[in-house]
């Protein structure tokens, strides 16, 4: 491969490989199986969210409301169980809520033709507010005894591999199959590449867009289940955090352009691995919080600069909008 053909994906992968090698050599205790599992486990939820975002971004959209889908439906499960409902009924209610939320998002974007950025920004704030005002008593929805068994999703392990990693791998496989093996997946790329062209060729683009947002909401809700099971509570205030930027970062850093039609599951995995490696290594080194932010920012900057140096903007790429 010549240097010219290095894309963002390869650049980020190279940075990841270099970082990984440096940590493995200089940090005792980094390159152990146990630590690798921890590293993956810590970014599993981020990775799952990244996959949901990837589905949307490939279709030339963006879903800012993903964190609301992560926080509110799983929070509803914990709250309902606390109020005495059974776990299966509560789960069904949560999935139904996520489903309706995805449908509303999709309808607004596909049929009402509201730009995805604004539509999901509004619906996300609405859902989070709805949760705070109507559904939950406290920001942190606490665990109750009726939830027992559910925590295996976040704290259990199969053959020594923690469940969040298995959940991430599972969603990776499902999304990869959907994108690469099904007609619907091909439609996603077609719509992302050229929405008008896709419509002219007879692709039912509106229902497909609705489907994208429904899938994203459901995957987001699943990520929330894993998170809640993993920390034995649902801190719904997570909606106010910067998590959504991290999710977009994973997707864009991995090489899925916001202009749509490109990238896949592998990109999300690479982006997630880079973030995971940085976080893990810096925690082991016990670097201060501000120091961590500084390093994170620098690595990201290097990735972006190297990419724009290797892949200078030309007429074609410049025309593809940044959202």
């Amino acid at each position: 491969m010549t240097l010219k053909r290095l894309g963002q994906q390869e650049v980020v992968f190279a940075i990841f490989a270099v970082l990984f090698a440096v940590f493995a050599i200089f940090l005792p205790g980094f390159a152990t199986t146990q630590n690798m599992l921890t590293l993956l486990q810590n970014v599993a939820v981020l990775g799952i969210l990244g996959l949901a975002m990837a589905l949307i971004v490939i279709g030339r959209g963006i879903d800012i409301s993903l964190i609301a889908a992560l926080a509110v439906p799983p929070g509803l499960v914990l709250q309902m169980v606390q109020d005495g409902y059974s776990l299966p009924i509560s789960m069904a209610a949560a999935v139904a809520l996520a489903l309706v939320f995805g449908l509303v998002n999709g309808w607004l974007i596909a049929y009402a033709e509201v730009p995805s950025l604004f539509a999901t920004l509004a619906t996300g704030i609405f859902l989070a507010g709805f949760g705070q005002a109507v559904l939950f008593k406290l920001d942190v929805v606490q665990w109750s005894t009726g939830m027992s068994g559910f925590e295996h999703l976040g704290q259990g392990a199969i053959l020594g591999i923690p469940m969040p990693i298995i959940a991430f791998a599972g969603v990776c496989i499902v999304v990869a199959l959907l994108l690469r093996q099904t007609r619907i997946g091909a439609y996603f790329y077609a719509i992302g590449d050229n929405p008008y062209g896709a419509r002219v060729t007879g692709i039912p683009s509106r229902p497909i867009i609705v489907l994208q947002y429904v899938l994203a909401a459901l995957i987001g809700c699943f990520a929330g289940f894993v998170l809640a099971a993993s920390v034995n509570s649902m801190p719904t205030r997570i909606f106010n955090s910067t998590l959504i930027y991290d999710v977009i970062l994973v997707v864009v850093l991995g090489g899925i352009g916001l202009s749509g039609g490109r990238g896949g599951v592998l990109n999300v995995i690479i982006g997630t691995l880079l973030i995971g490696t940085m976080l893990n290594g810096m925690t082991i080194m016990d670097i201060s919080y501000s120091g961590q932010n500084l390093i994170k920012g620098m690595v990201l900057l290097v990735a972006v600069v190297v990419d724009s140096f290797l892949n200078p903007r030309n007429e074609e790429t410049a025309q593809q909008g940044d959202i």
Partner: protein
Amino acid sequence: MKAIKRFIAGGLASAGLAALAVAPALAQQGLDEPFQASFKKALEGKTVGYLPVAMNFDLTEGWFAGVKKELEPYGVKVIVRDPNWSTSAGAQALTTLISEKPAAIIVHNPDVQTYAKLMQRAEKEGIYVIQVNMGSVYRSAAFVGANWIEIGERNADAVIKACQGKSNKIAIVQGALSAATSAYTLKGVENVLAKHPEIKVVSSQAADWDAAKAKAITQTVLKQNPDLCGIIGFWDGMDIGTAAAVKEAGLTGKVFLATSGGGERKGACELVKSGAFDLNVSYDVPTQAADMAGMIKWLLSSGVKPGDAKGSIYTTLTNITKDNAGSDTACWNLSDLKK
């Protein structure tokens, strides 16, 4: 002996006679308590503003419910302004509150600086200001709250004690770097650590009050130091994540986890009972609410000019451990407090 007996009997008899003489007079005519009417008048129809950093979490909901419960029966209206974690929205809300001229304002500071000038202005305009749990550089009529330094010291003491004869390696999970409560607690921990050079802090990281971040950090630290003997966490709401990491590593009971919080039953006692936390230093929220309400009653009825009297009511801290976590009084329920 006999003399003493006779003396007692005589005493009782004369006391009885005296009672007989007075009782009819009391029964016929009530005696007015001279101060209660003016007390009632001083409170009746007054308004108290309440400005927390945000509603919807155990501490601020508990304070609100507790203060309302104490003051509303006297005809005091308690109004809440919820800035939902936004410092600038909070400053704005405080400015509006001052112009509405309530009798007193309860302020929960987001940091030591932001509201200082505004609180000074409020007291100049004749409004009593009570600060809760997070004191600002401006000292107003009263500060009611936990002594964070002491919380850090208590937690560090407990962890170091649990570490005796073990690896002496501990980890610290801080809150948000910008929060003064976190910095104060850290100072308390440092005070104790200075006396124990044998203790090695293998990790001291900020988890932003976020359970997921606390879990991720603790997992990594435990993998690197499986012989860790204790962790000091800065808030129980966040340390649910810390505890989950300890449990997943199969180290519950081996790693001593000390934390602190407002003592709400689900967030404190039940987690201590389950073994997730070994120590939870509680600044009992209903007590703090009662202290604030008591302070407001005193100030309103005393007629002291706002800004003239200044004092502090540091909350007496309770250690919640396995020994008392099962008792009915160690923790409180938000739902009960709201009744």
